[in-house]
């Protein structure tokens, strides 16, 4: 293994500003949270998350499938069922909260997978270069060109309607987004600090990757990640709406909407309520992500 022709002195210089940058961006992230434009929608979203995960236990709300035929289609404000029940007698509020759990889990899970896979693929593509890089980039292009929903549809359909499968199906599209970003970030460093081909000897190479490349790649990816959670949640809602995501009896905002569609004329609340829940969650999330992105921009 040939010695990496990068003297320690150079490496020390490389270490300096970039390590600081990582620390700075972490600090910057914390400071960003403190501003009202971030904190307010952020708090709303966290409230939604809290309600969905802790709500049922806290308020003693019945399970989403605990209804009986005796209490079908109760309207809003009925005793014991604040938001009424659906055609199977299940409590709507409960279904909303449990459905929210699913949406959030899918959103975060899919984003996490996309982030990881995209990061790995993008960074390695840039680092190793050559045919491998070209192949990966074309793969990303293809995934981006391919209508995401159709892709997700087909995958979800093949794998079958289960939570894990929905997450996988949605994560595919995000991989290329994160991958391209990771690639471009790695490119900037590669060009700047490594004039020599990156055939590093073991320890140095690993140190370079973890010590220098990662700190520069992660922050922008995290910024994108927040937006991605919203997109993933939207896709899950779409998939479930089409019947190819989460399936009954498990509620999801998407499938609640499609189920409620048949009662659009006499009981529009069955459609409107999950819609509102979805909109509130997504808007608060996007407002937060947008406010954070704006702060990054003005500081850059």
């Amino acid at each position: 293994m040939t010695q990496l022709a990068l003297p320690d002195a150079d490496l020390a210089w490389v270490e300096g500003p970039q390590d600081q940058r990582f620390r700075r961006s972490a600090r910057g992230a914390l400071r960003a949270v403190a501003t009202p434009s971030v904190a307010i929608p952020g708090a709303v979203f966290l409230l939604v998350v809290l309600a969905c995960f802790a709500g049922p236990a806290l308020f003693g709300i019945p399970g989403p499938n605990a209804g009986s035929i005796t209490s079908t289609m109760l309207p809003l404000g009925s005793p014991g069922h604040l938001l009424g029940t659906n055609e199977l007698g299940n409590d709507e509020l409960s279904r909303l909260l449990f459905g929210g759990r699913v949406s959030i889990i899918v959103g975060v899970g899919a984003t996490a997978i996309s982030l990881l896979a995209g990061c790995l693929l993008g960074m390695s593509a840039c680092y190793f270069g050559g045919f491998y890089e070209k192949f990966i980039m074309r793969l990303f292009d293809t995934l981006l060109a391919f209508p995401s929903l159709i892709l997700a549809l087909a995958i979800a359909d093949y794998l079958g309607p289960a939570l894990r499968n929905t997450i996988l199906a949605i994560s595919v599209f995000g991989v290329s987004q994160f991958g391209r970003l990771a690639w471009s970030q790695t490119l900037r460093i590669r060009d700047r600090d490594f004039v020599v081909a990156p055939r590093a000897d073991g320890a140095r190479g690993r140190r370079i990757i973890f010590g220098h490349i990662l700190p520069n790649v992660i922050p922008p990816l995290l910024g994108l990640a927040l937006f991605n959670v919203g997109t993933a949640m939207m896709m899950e809602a779409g998939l479930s709406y089409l019947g190819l995501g989460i399936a009954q009896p498990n509620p999801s905002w998407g499938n609640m909407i499609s189920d409620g569609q048949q009662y659009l004329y006499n009981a529009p609340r069955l459609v409107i309520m999950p819609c509102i829940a979805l909109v509130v969650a997504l808007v608060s999330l996007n407002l937060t992500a947008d406010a954070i992105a704006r702060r990054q921009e003005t500081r850059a």
Partner: protein
Amino acid sequence: MARWIIDRLIQMIVVLIFATVLGFLLVRLLKGNELFALLGDNYTKQAADALSAQLGLNKPLPIQYLTWLGDAVRGDFGTSAVTQQAVGPALLAALGPTVELLIGAQLVSLVLTLITTSVSVRWRWTERLTTGLALLCSSVPSFVVGLLMIVLFSTTLHLLPAIAWASPKTAGWGTNIEGMIMPSIALGISVFPNYMRVLRSQVNEQLENEEYVTLARMKGLSGPRVFIRHVVPNSLSGLITLVALTTGFLISGVVIVEQVFGIPGEGSLVYNAIQKRDATMLEGAILLIAVAVVVFNLIGELAQMRLDPRIRAR
């Protein structure tokens, strides 16, 4: 410039091939299930094998791909084993409604973009408002918008029909367009935020940095005139590129919106094909869609190159 085009074309073809391979593989995943769907209760190993041989499913994958691609290029998309209709003509018939929806959606977003940009530039205090509006629109899925509109305009106000599609040949263009208003809005709203962001930044750049704007005002031209005749045309290059590139994204959204409103377009075709395990139909549809998306992306990139003011100024 020519070299760049050739370079890009080659990349596009590679992506196209990848896309078709991907689509093909996806469908193959379904083809296995197709056998279940077709045979139903009569499913036995032998019957499955026989059907498989009959449909050509037992040949090696690459051969199947090439055969299919060869046929498709010649226009023969095969016959759907599920619906017994020829795939090609079915794809063609479904094209109309989808194209109309796409055009409608683009129109809606462009109009919205122009209005919001003009308003936020003329009355600066509305800038945050319009940005907030845009954010709201990008946070709401198109099917939610569609459904809420149906609830409001069809069920409550009885203004617009919930069933969107009425063929212009049989029901006339009036009814057709009336039906397509809501779906177009539903789909268009999801992309207008991006358009507005791009147009607004370019417009602001023109207003701040370009002296011809100051000069035009000094000439005594009215604000609106300067804006519409001078600033906007100079701000369109980025937007035009974006419009082309967004078409791919819209094609995705078409699938859902067509379901909400019952429009018999390509989206519904794809959806039904997936549901019914209709592999042949799906193959054809995916090919069509992949080609369309890639072509639009190429148009977008070409537009970007062409409309770049630095190039025009040469």
